[in-house]
């Protein structure tokens, strides 16, 4: 168990290291420096600026410095928000993004599982077809179309919820963004759960469970559900990626001060360090998610421990 986890961890760390290295090099080999757009800078000020950011040092020194700082959670200064470090910006935005992201993920899992199980139990009946049609639509409609439409209906026409904006502690401001973020992963989870449950229900051990005289409910929940969740667990990391991606547009549309909006601003302003920091952060979150999924697999299927 512990060995299995250490082995997985051993795979994750080099991956992250490669990402950091490649991203760092990409920034440095890019055509033009970060201060190119500020054309009127006299050479001595430019030199001072570069010295201040350590850009006058040889590449490997810069790299070593960046790595060392990273290990202390320091992503370096932002090139555009001059008074802030990237770490400060992330620290400010991450709680907001995490809040809506975790809410969306939990909703997507809870509702998606419920819908998937219901549809599988009513295979090819009206409820199944209705759910699966809605699910197909849920996958197709992008969050940046859904959120404005939701805003139009619930914010502008019926005035139930605020269209955009942010007040610390206000849940009402988060409802529409969370709903918009939830739909696509919810639809995927529902579809995966249904397909996987239908497949598991064909396996021999399910026949054994029925032959023991257990009621459908017990067979389903105790015997079928856990193996059926394996593909759903595999989708967890992509779901997190989808929500992180969605949060970029959702935060921009709804005006939420999360990291997604900083990233978009940073990208538009060519704020190298900010975007680099965000890419590393998001990669680390996703790799971490992968580890969580590996642990989940062990619980879902005890054989995993021995096989890998």
């Amino acid at each position: 168990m512990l060995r299995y986890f250490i082995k997985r961890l051993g795979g994750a760390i080099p991956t992250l290291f490669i990402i950091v290295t490649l991203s760092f090099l990409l920034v440095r080999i890019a055509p033009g420096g970060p201060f190119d757009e500020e054309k009127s800078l006299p050479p001595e000020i430019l030199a001072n600026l570069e010295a201040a950011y350590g850009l006058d040092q040889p590449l490997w020194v810069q790299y070593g410095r960046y790595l060392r700082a990273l290990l202390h959670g320091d992503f370096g200064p932002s090139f555009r928000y001059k008074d802030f470090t990237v770490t400060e910006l992330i620290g400010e935005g991450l709680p907001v993004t995490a809040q809506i992201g975790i809410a969306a993920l939990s909703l997507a899992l809870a509702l998606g599982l419920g819908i998937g199980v219901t549809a599988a139990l009513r295979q090819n009946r009206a409820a199944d077809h209705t759910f699966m049609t809605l699910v197909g639509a849920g996958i197709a409609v992008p969050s940046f179309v859904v959120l404005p439409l939701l805003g139009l209906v619930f914010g502008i026409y019926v005035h139930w919820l605020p269209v955009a904006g942010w007040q610390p502690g206000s849940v009402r401001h988060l409802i529409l963004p969370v709903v918009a973020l939830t739909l696509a992963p919810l639809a995927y989870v529902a579809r995966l759960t249904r397909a996987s449950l239908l497949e598991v229900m064909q396996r021999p051990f399910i026949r054994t469970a029925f032959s023991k005289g257990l009621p459908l409910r017990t067979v389903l929940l105790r015997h079928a559900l856990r193996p059926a969740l394996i593909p759903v667990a595999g989708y967890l990391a992509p779901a997190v990626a989808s929500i992180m991606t969605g949060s970029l547009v959702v935060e921009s549309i709804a005006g939420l001060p999360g990291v997604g909006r900083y990233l978009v601003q940073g990208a538009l302003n060519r704020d190298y360090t900010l975007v680099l920091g965000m890419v590393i952060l998001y990669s680390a979150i996703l790799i971490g998610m992968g580890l969580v999924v590996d642990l989940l697999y062990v619980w879902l299927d005890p054989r995993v421990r021995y096989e890998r």
Partner: protein
Amino acid sequence: MGSLRGDVGRGLLANAGARVSLGVVAALAVLAVIGPWLNPNGAQTLDWSRVAAHPALAHAHWFGTDRLGRDLFVRTLEGARVSMMVGLVAGMVSLSLGLLYGAVAGYAGGRTDDVMMRTIEIIGGLPLIFFVIFLTVVFGRNEYLLFVSIGAIGWLTLARIVRGQALSIRRQAYIEAAIATGAGSVRIIRKHVLPNVIGPVIVYATLAIPQIILLESFLSFLGLGIREPRASLGTLIAEGAGEMEAAPWILLAPGLFLTLLLLSLGVFGDRLRDSLEPGARR
């Protein structure tokens, strides 16, 4: 193979969902190509007498106008044309990369295969969209780069499929016979492996295209993709989202077009896959 394709085609056309979705995709594509000529307005023509006008048949702005008085019917269709072009071009990039990578890995087998597949696994675990954003930051916004970087995301699944197929084909007797007669690797890949993987490849390319279109719209929406004066569905939706309170139709026209396009492409891809691999349906 010929008869298989025939069966798939017949099975597909017997399926109402497949017929309808294919019809909708075709109709949207035709509309995107010839639509703008159906309307008297040009895409960049500013009609200052009707700024942000309602959709109405009376003034020839069937979907209304935007805040600069540009006709939304024409703009939506031109945007759709750009989006579909990106989908096709980036789709081709994905297809070529996936085919090449998968065929080589599957054909080579052994350690090369292990390393290549492990690489795919690692890349697949990354937040690729952020890398695309990252690339646009580093290299500046450039539409060719956009095509390539979006295309570079979609090839992973394809490469896996092609590799699996290539691996099984390689083990078959006639390939071994071809090797025995001294046929070179390139020739074998081109003559035997590629033709045999074409079915699944078409399916997964069909499934990849809506994702590519979505990704392009997403980047354009954020202002990181297609830029003024060109427009794609994403930039139009971004414009619309800003004007939603006063003129919701600016959002609705491109929003509905994109949704319909993605939905019908998605349904068609699913049905195509079902008819090729009946096992996947359950």
